[in-house]
């Protein structure tokens, strides 16, 4: 079990693993050192739970290189941690998604409303929990936000990822995929256009249907499979659209509101991978 800032989910899964009679090797990244020059397999499978993407990706690469399969695999993590990479594999697999543009300068970004109109959404290409995402309603607001982004130290903010705003019914749907199954989904309901529960959105059990399951499974497969959180919105005309796929899922709220223990699914899936 690889982590940097362990939370309820990590403690819960560790208990489940031990209850199943398996030994848990803790890898607390904040007090660990990885020797890249002397690789040897030290576990049958690893569950990646670090919330920092750069720590997760580098430690996943380390374990895979030393012969330990990781949930999720390196390819899935790299794709899911970058919205542009995610969108491109979704697009190539014909999965319906919102119209999205990327521009690399303020001048170019200011032209995008000609194609997208207002309001539009501008997001960092990395990170989640709705952090630093903005709903932009007019040209002056866009200019202001672009100036702030261009002034940010990190180069990723000079990649202007702009997306059409979906008039969704004040909720989105987080569909969980584990391997080739869709065990549970939740609605995330909020007055705020950003429905993340991390921002106060309320979670509620969602009804699954064949179409929703199929679109979630297709999206999960497109990014490389594993344990994934597929974020879907309901567009009035086009129906289900996939917004994003997340590779390190929080599931405490889901357990609380649905009673479904996703931690158990993840642990069983990891044990299955260990036996392959």
């Amino acid at each position, binding site marked *: 079990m690889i*982590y940097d800032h*362990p939370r309820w989910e990590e403690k819960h899964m560790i208990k489940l693993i031990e209850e199943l009679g398996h030994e848990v090797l803790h890898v607390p990244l904040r007090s660990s050192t990885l020797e890249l020059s002397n690789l040897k397999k030290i576990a049958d499978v690893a569950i990646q739970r670090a919330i*920092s*993407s750069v720590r997760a990706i580098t430690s996943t690469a380390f374990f895979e290189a030393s012969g330990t399969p990781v949930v999720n695999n390196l390819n899935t993590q790299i794709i899911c941690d970058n919205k542009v990479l995610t969108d491109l594999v979704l697009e190539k697999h014909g999965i319906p998604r919102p119209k999205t543009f990327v521009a690399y300068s303020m001048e170019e970004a200011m032209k995008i409303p000609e194609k997208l109109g207002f309001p539009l959404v501008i997001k960092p290409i990395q990170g989640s929990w709705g952090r*630093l995402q903005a709903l932009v309603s007019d040209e002056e607001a866009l200019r202001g936000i672009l100036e702030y982004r261009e002034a940010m130290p990190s180069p990723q903010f000079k990649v202007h990822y702009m997306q059409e705003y979906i008039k969704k019914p004040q909720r989105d749907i987080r569909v969980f995929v584990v391997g080739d199954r869709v065990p549970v989904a939740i609605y995330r309901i909020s007055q705020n256009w950003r429905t993340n529960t991390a921002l106060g959105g309320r979670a509620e059990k969602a009804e699954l249907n064949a179409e929703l399951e199929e679109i979630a499974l297709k999206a999960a497969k497109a990014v490389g499979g594993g344990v994934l*959180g597929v974020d879907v919105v309901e567009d009035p005309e086009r129906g289900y659209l996939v917004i994003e796929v997340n590779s390190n899922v929080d599931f405490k709220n889901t357990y609380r509101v649905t009673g479904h223990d996703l931690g158990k699914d993840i642990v069983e899936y990891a044990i299955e991978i260990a036996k392959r």
Partner: protein
Amino acid sequence: MKVKCPVCGAEIELPEDVMDGEIIECESCGAQLEVKKSGDKIELKVAEEAAEDWGE
């Protein structure tokens, strides 16, 4: 298990299953603290800032 908050000195009660790297909030001063645990030795230090690459 009681440990001192490095910011305000208040005593913090840590859960039995506390883990290395875990983030704990000091109830008296609100500081975000990171657990440094090796063997039975536990100390708290001010947690690192949330970074832009943190998330699901």
